[in-house]
């Protein structure tokens, strides 16, 4: 590269992108460095007696949830795309709704429904005089954890696979039909192989969510990596070992991602033809029709209607005690912090996406990969890394203040900066992906046209690029906002003193065995997420046209 090529690469976009990336990788570096630090006695104890159990539990939950969500998500996607049955159009988007219920809320709701004082057992006792064996109704087990994750995470696989089947498969399926293959046959010999990439993509999202979860496993008392990191950190006060656990977890994540790449391999076929024609659903006959309808309704009922109804009932039960001035404060806190973090994420995403788009090189390819890495690091690992980082930073600030003889110093640890910083690391990928695909759809010629008309990259960015990807920015905003609003582990451990959000307040009620009181905060989260999910699908559908 000659020197003016170097100069062209080193512009404002590059510098801002490098700074953003640096912030993103900093906590990862903290964790990985600690992995190679000398071990203490505590770590040896953990490694010998506890780690095998954490690994066993975590792996069991991951494998079981992975298999079940795949079966449910793929079969639903298949039924909704290929067959016509009663209320198909309603189910098409309704089946996404369980995503609005964060698994930790689903977990305590189902525990509340199934336990001794819950609606099922009370009805059985009072109406029928039946007292059941408690072990049948105990959801707080590792199987119960899998049950909860499956119900509330299958939509990741459902949405991705459905979109794929809807857009990509019509001619193949029609051809297979003409060649005389039956439905089951087509499903296993055509649909599964061609949608493999989509399914694997969905499963890896589910697994990332499982690894990230803290709420469900903590409430159910299951020992996994997430709970282990926090209990080592707060219970044993052993930051070093907690960081080592976080590092081990990150290696597990990297292994999964590498495996995804390998399994996917060369099979990343997008469709060869550009003429994509959606599949026309086929009406079902006789009992098949009702069987499919029953299956789809059952999943929707268990994953959404039942928990939602229960939450609504509890909300009415406790409304007067919970709905106070402080509740408005909670809503305001949630919206404020989610909004701020989302705006920062979108700014970062726009700058980095525009840089990697305008100056494609090996360097920008790496930057683009690193940007999306944060989403795969579980909340527990980010939380401890960020705290370690800010403790160090506060120390330095204090030293500096002493050296300069200042009486007042700024302490990052007690502000929202720490929490927002952690959100940015974890959710930048979500915003970046949708903005990047927005840019891809639009292409570069409008930007070039604007530059040929005398505007530089910054002016072009505001006058042409941003207006052209408005839809993508909007859906990025919605996706990131929902995720931050529902987020639990980071918020729980990084929120400043005297600050709570809807999510952490709900979890606090639940931890204090006040399940009913948690309902109002939970239902506000569910309603807001549900509404935004609906809006974003409308936006995405419109974009697709």
């Amino acid at each position, binding site marked *: 590269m*000659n020197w*003016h*090529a170097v*100069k*062209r690469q080193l512009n404002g976009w590059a510098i801002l992108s490098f700074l953003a990336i640096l912030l993103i990788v900093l906590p990862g570096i903290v964790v990985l460095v600690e992995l190679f630090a000398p071990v203490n006695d505590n770590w040896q104890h953990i490694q010998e007696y506890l780690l095998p159990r954490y690994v066993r539990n975590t792996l069991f939950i991951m494998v079981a949830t992975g298999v079940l969500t795949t079966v449910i998500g793929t079969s639903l996607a298949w039924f909704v795309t290929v067959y016509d049955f009663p209320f198909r159009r309603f189910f098409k988007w309704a089946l996404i709704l369980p995503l609005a219920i964060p698994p930790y809320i689903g977990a305590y709701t189902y525990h509340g429904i199934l336990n001794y004082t819950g609606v099922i057992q009370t009805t059985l006792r009072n109406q029928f005089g039946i007292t059941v064996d408690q072990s049948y109704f105990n959801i707080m087990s590792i199987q119960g954890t899998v049950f909860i994750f499956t119900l509330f995470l299958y939509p990741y696989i459902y949405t991705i696979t459905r979109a794929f089947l809807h857009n990509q498969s019509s001619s193949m399926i029609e051809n297979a039909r003409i060649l005389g293959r039956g439905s089951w046959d087509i499903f296993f010999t055509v649909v599964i192989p061609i949608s493999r990439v989509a399914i694997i993509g969905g499963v890896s999202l589910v697994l990332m969510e499982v690894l990230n979860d803290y709420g469900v496993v903590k409430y159910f008392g299951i020992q996994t990596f997430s709970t282990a990191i926090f209990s080592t950190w707060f219970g044993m006060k052993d930051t070093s070992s907690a960081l080592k656990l976080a590092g081990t977890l990150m290696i597990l994540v990297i292994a999964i991602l590498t495996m995804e790449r390998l399994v996917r391999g060369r099979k990343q076929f997008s469709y060869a033809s550009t003429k994509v024609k959606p599949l026309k659903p086929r009406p079902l006959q006789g009992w098949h029709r009702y069987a499919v309808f029953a299956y789809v309704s059952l999943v929707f009922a268990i994953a959404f209607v039942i928990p939602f109804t229960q939450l609504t009932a509890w909300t009415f039960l406790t409304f007067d005690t919970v709905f106070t001035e402080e509740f408005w404060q909670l809503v305001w806190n949630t919206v404020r912090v989610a909004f701020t973090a989302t705006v920062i994420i979108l700014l970062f995403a726009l700058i980095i996406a525009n840089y990697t788009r305008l100056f*494609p*090189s090996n360097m920008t390819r790496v930057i683009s990969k690193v940007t999306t890495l944060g989403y795969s690091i579980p909340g527990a690992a980010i939380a401890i890394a960020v705290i370690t980082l800010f403790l160090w930073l506060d120390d330095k600030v204090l030293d500096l203040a002493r050296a300069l003889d200042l009486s007042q110093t700024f302490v990052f640890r007690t502000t929202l900066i720490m929490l927002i910083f952690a959100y940015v690391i974890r959710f930048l990928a979500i915003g970046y992906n949708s903005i990047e695909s927005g840019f891809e759809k639009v292409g570069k*010629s*409008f930007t*070039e*046209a*604007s*530059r*040929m*008309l*005398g*505007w*530089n990259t910054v002016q072009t960015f505001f*006058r*042409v690029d941003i*207006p*052209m990807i408005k839809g993508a920015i909007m859906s990025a905003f919605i996706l990131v906002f929902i995720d931050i609003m529902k987020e639990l582990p980071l918020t729980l451990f990084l929120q400043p003193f005297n600050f709570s959000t809807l999510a952490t307040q709900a979890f606090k009620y639940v931890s204090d065995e006040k399940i009913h009181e948690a309902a109002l905060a939970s239902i506000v989260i569910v309603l807001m997420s549900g509404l935004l999910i609906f809006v974003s699908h409308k936006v995405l559908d419109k974009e697709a046209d």
Partner: protein
Amino acid sequence: MFVQINDLHFSYKGAHEETIKGFSISITKGEIVSLLGDSGSGKSTILRLIAGLEMPNQGVVVVNDCVCCDDCQFMPPEDRGVGMVFQDYALFPHMTVEKNIRFGLHKLNRKERNARVEEMLALVNLTEFRHRYPYELSGGQQQRVALARALAPKPALLILDEPFSNLDTSLQHRIRDDLRRLLKQTGTTTIFVTHDEEDAEALADRIVYLGEGKIKKQIMTENNKTFNPQIPCFV
């Protein structure tokens, strides 16, 4: 010479062979030059290099006494005073015809700007379509908007990338005559790229045949004799 390009070399990232291997040309003011070649001959790449959308490995581009690029400097596209009509027109879909044309006129004051927009709308005969959005126009109308937009800032050099590739044949014939008249009327120095010999003959004063990143031969067209007889012939 008004446009002077010397020994231009360029290769795409990761490619072993150079796409452009020592391209040189001089163009007088007001001349219309066509670059003719098969796909892969590097003709569009040469346009992008002149525009400043790609950076050459070596070579000099001078337009109207202004050094756009040589071994030690590289002027970004927005400062070159070169206008371009893109193959797909790249009309901004969120702006009306009028706003598209106005887009490049930010260096003028308001009064001059309004006058220039009117002038350009009249020139391409689209005054009554000023408030339409690009998707509400036909292919030929879109092309005229793209042309008006590129010409509005009075570029020293206009470049057109396959200007007729998106038009049907009957339209193509009429438009290329109109286009030539318009370019001569405004005295615009023009380079355009095409793979169609007939287009080149109808529109250009000179045709430059390209192959494998180099000039194969050059000829003056019939047009040249009527419009610009003083240009020497390079056959």
